């Protein structure tokens, strides 16, 4: 009730001025109507006065005429001997005079005449001129009236004597007539003036009403236009919001009907055309399971009940995350996740609608799933990784290769099996042999999970073997196990690839050969140390070279030369490019003297390994990028596309130096290129590991029995930690 009152007040407030103006208009109209009525009454009343004044003129003439007729009858002897006709005429005279008197009396405020419908509104006394004229009429009339009255009561047979009357009447007749005429005219003028005044008022009232009306029109139209503009603006804003929002938005009424306006994104998000006014549940039905559909209906009904707290039931929303699928022309199913939320729209305490918000949360859900999968995979892989890390890499690779070949063989046997008799017993036996061998290898490598899977596979094959006829249905478990094994082998390969990424850095660190002070003091070591010191002095740096490993002098001359050349080049490279000046090193928390560590070890497999490591600034890929552009080897665009690994590998390319100036020690970009060339020729391989700011590490493997090769070395491995 209060609300209605407030609304009424609000409504009046908005239209207050219009209401006031219309009221004024009505007041003016009533005023004009009243005025018209008054004028009309006034004119009627004034007409009576004018008429009465006009009667005076007529009565004077009638009186004169009658008196003269009586007198003429008497003079010409045409007078009725009985005197009857004269008597009648005298009576007429008297009646005329009485009427005259009655009018005078009425004008003087006496009783109204019998034929008057209302009181006189206009009397001579109201105007000075009229009063004077009326007084003159009365003065002129008084002697005439006196004579007429003396003729009263005439006797039969007696001739009435109108002589005295005529004596009075004739001289004043014209004056009386004129005075009566003037009085009438004056009254007419007074009446006209009064009517003009009233009409003026009437006109003013009408004008005011018209002005008022025009103002109403102007004011109302203005307000209407303003109101229309506001509505239009609000509509435009709503449309803009609905057109632009990336959410599906619409209102839902208690009959589950969607409101007339829906956001443009809605159809795109839910994947079907959604029109305003449609039944939301009908739209939802093909998208969700019957159970979800029923629960949604109940949930909406619950929300529409005002006695249930919205926040309490929000967690029950069955559409908080639903998966819908759409088929692409290729047959692939596009799965999307939607979140449909409902919020109450209240009017007072009553729930009139629900605001429905639809969001595509596919990305979020997929990310969550990927995260979960990733966590699970990481956990699975961690267990596997421990075993793989412990396993001998070569054995592991051999196993994987054998497993892959074995599984391929089994799959091929399945594929080529006879459609009628299935796989033959010898083929089943062959499969069992493969499975058994792989199981043993897996167990040796401590790959427990694979070993168990292979054991289960053996059981399946065993069951298959005892069958005399093997239908395709009997082979289904074989195919399923083979697929599982493929997946497990792939998972191990995936883990190895991941370990490889880490091991690339780790494995470049070879086990250190035992330190032998005697070897460390040998001539070739002294030569390296001396060369390093000279270079360091020239470049105002400090270095310490340490050596561990075999006596290089014991190697074949070719191998010894190769090692010597490589080490000298690595020293040159390290001192010129790698090791920082003492002050820089101090700032970086390093010892002032750069450490150059050289190891040469016999691997026992017909190869020796040379390891050279400095703890300088490492390789800066950006410097190489700049050098590659400067030397014209790469265009700026191509250089930009190169990653750190590709850039690092470029240090082995001829003619590339990061040094801007050429001196005796560096700048021509030929040193490492030459080392690579030498090692390639000897059939060896070189790898590099570096961390910018920390170290640079070369690892060279050379066969002890040198067989010169022309082909290129294995791609140098470079890992940037």
């Amino acid at each position, binding site marked *: 009730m209060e609300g209605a009152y407030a609304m009424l007040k609000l409504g009046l407030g908005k239209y207050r001025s219009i209401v006031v103006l219309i009221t004024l208009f009505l007041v003016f109209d009533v005023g004009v109507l009243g005025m018209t009525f008054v004028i009309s009454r006034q004119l009627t009343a004034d007409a009576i006065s004018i008429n009465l004044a006009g009667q005076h003129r007529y009565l004077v003439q009638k009186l004169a005429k009658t008196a003269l007729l009586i007198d003429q009858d008497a003079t010409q002897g045409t007078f009725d001997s009985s005197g009857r006709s004269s008597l009648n005429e005298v009576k007429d005279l008297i009646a005329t005079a009485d009427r005259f008197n009655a009018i005078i009396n009425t004008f003087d405020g006496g009783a109204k005449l019998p034929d008057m419908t209302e009181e006189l509104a206009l009397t001579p006394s109201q105007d000075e001129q009229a009063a004077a004229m009326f007084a003159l009429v009365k003065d002129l009339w008084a002697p005439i009236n006196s004579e007429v009255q003396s003729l009263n009561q005439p006797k039969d047979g007696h001739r009435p004597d109108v002589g005295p009357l005529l004596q009075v009447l004739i001289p004043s007749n014209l004056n009386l007539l004129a005075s009566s005429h003037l009085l009438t005219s004056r009254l007419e003028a007074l009446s006209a003036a009064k009517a003009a005044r009233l009409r003026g008022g009437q006109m003013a009232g009408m004008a005011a009403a018209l002005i008022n009306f025009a103002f109403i029109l102007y004011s109302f139209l203005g307000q209407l236009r303003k109101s229309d503009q506001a509505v239009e603006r609000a509509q435009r804003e709503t449309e803009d919001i609905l057109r632009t929002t990336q959410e599906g938005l619409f209102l839902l009424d208690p009959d589950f009907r969607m409101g007339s306006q829906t956001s443009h994104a809605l159809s795109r998000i839910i994947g079907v055309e959604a029109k305003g006014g449609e039944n939301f549940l009908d739209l939802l039905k093909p998208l969700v*399971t019957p159970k979800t559909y029923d629960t949604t209906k109940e949930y909406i009904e619950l929300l529409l009940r005002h006695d249930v707290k919205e926040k309490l039931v929000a967690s029950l929303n069955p559409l908080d995350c639903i*998966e819908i*699928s*759409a*088929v*692409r*022309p*290729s*047959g*692939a*199913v*596009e*799965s999307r996740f939607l979140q449909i939320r409902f919020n109450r729209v209240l009017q007072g305490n009553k729930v009139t609608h629900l605001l429905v918000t639809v969001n595509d949360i596919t990305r979020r859900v997929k990310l969550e799933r990927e995260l979960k999968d990733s966590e699970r995979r990481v956990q699975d892989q961690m267990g596997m990784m421990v075993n793989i890390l412990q396993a001998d890499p070569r054995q592991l690779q051999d196993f994987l290769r054998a497993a892959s070949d074995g599984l391929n063989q089994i*799959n*091929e046997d*399945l*594929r080529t*099996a*006879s*459609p*009628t008799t*299935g*796989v033959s017993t010898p083929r089943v036996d062959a499969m069992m042999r493969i499975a058994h061998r792989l199981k043993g290898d897996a167990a040796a490598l401590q790959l427990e999970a694979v070993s168990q899977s292979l054991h289960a596979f053996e059981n399946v094959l065993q069951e298959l073997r005892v069958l005399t006829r093997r*239908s*395709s*249905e009997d*082979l*289904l*478990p*074989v*195919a*399923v196990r*083979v*697929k599982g094994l*493929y*997946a497990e082998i*792939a998972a191990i390969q995936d883990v190895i690839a991941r370990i490889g990424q880490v091991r690339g850095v780790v494995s470049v660190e070879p086990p250190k050969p035992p330190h032998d002070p005697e070897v460390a003091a040998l001539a070739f070591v002294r030569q390296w140390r001396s060369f390093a010191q000279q270079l360091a002095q020239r470049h105002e740096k400090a270095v310490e070279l340490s050596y561990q490993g075999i006596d290089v002098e014991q190697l074949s001359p070719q191998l010894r030369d190769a090692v010597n050349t490589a080490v000298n080049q690595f020293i040159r490279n390290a001192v010129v490019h790698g090791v920082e000046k003492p002050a820089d090193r101090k700032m970086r928390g390093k010892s002032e003297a750069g450490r150059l560590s050289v190891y040469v070890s016999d691997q026992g497999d017909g190869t020796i390994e040379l390891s050279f490591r400095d703890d300088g600034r490492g390789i800066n890929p950006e410097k190489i990028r700049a050098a590659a552009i400067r030397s014209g080897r790469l265009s700026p665009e191509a250089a930009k596309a190169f990653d750190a690994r590709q850039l690092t590998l470029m240090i082995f390319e001829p003619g590339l130096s990061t040094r801007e100036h050429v001196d005796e020690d560096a700048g021509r970009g030929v040193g490492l290129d030459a080392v690579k060339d030498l090692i390639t020729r000897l059939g060896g391989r070189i790898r590099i590991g570096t961390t910018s700011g920390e170290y640079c590490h070369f690892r060279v493997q050379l066969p002890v029995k040198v067989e010169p090769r022309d082909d290129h070395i294995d791609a140098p491995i470079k890992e940037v930690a």
Partner: protein
Amino acid sequence: MDEQQLRVFIDIVSQYFERQTGKAPEVGSPYLGDASALPIYDFTGVIGISGERQGCVYVTAHRDLLRQLLLHVGEADVSDTNLCDLVGEVANTISGNARRYFGPDFMISVPVVVSGNARAIQVPRSVKAYILPLRWHKFEAALVVSLQ
């Protein structure tokens, strides 16, 4: 996907043939194939699968098999349109029945029919697919199940 689930797909197809023609197809030895080497014959009906596991199941058949099947059911019009419709119907039968069997864990789409060398069929690349060869009246077809 285990053998039970694979068996469901085989049963659906077998029953379809049996119901329509009175003769179930011979099911060959199941084997595995890479995404790049899956059998695709003249007409293929694909149903996509999403949800817990993603991928597709498709039935692919030679033109002659489908033509023969149509004639068996008394349909004289063996135009490509009708052959497409037929393979679509087989896929639809798989879709409908599988949906009933697997429940909400497998979201199974309505089928799509592709004719010719359907390179456009999208199967998961990283896993091997089950290939279940079918033979009916000496004509070849295959049921392929490829799920991640």
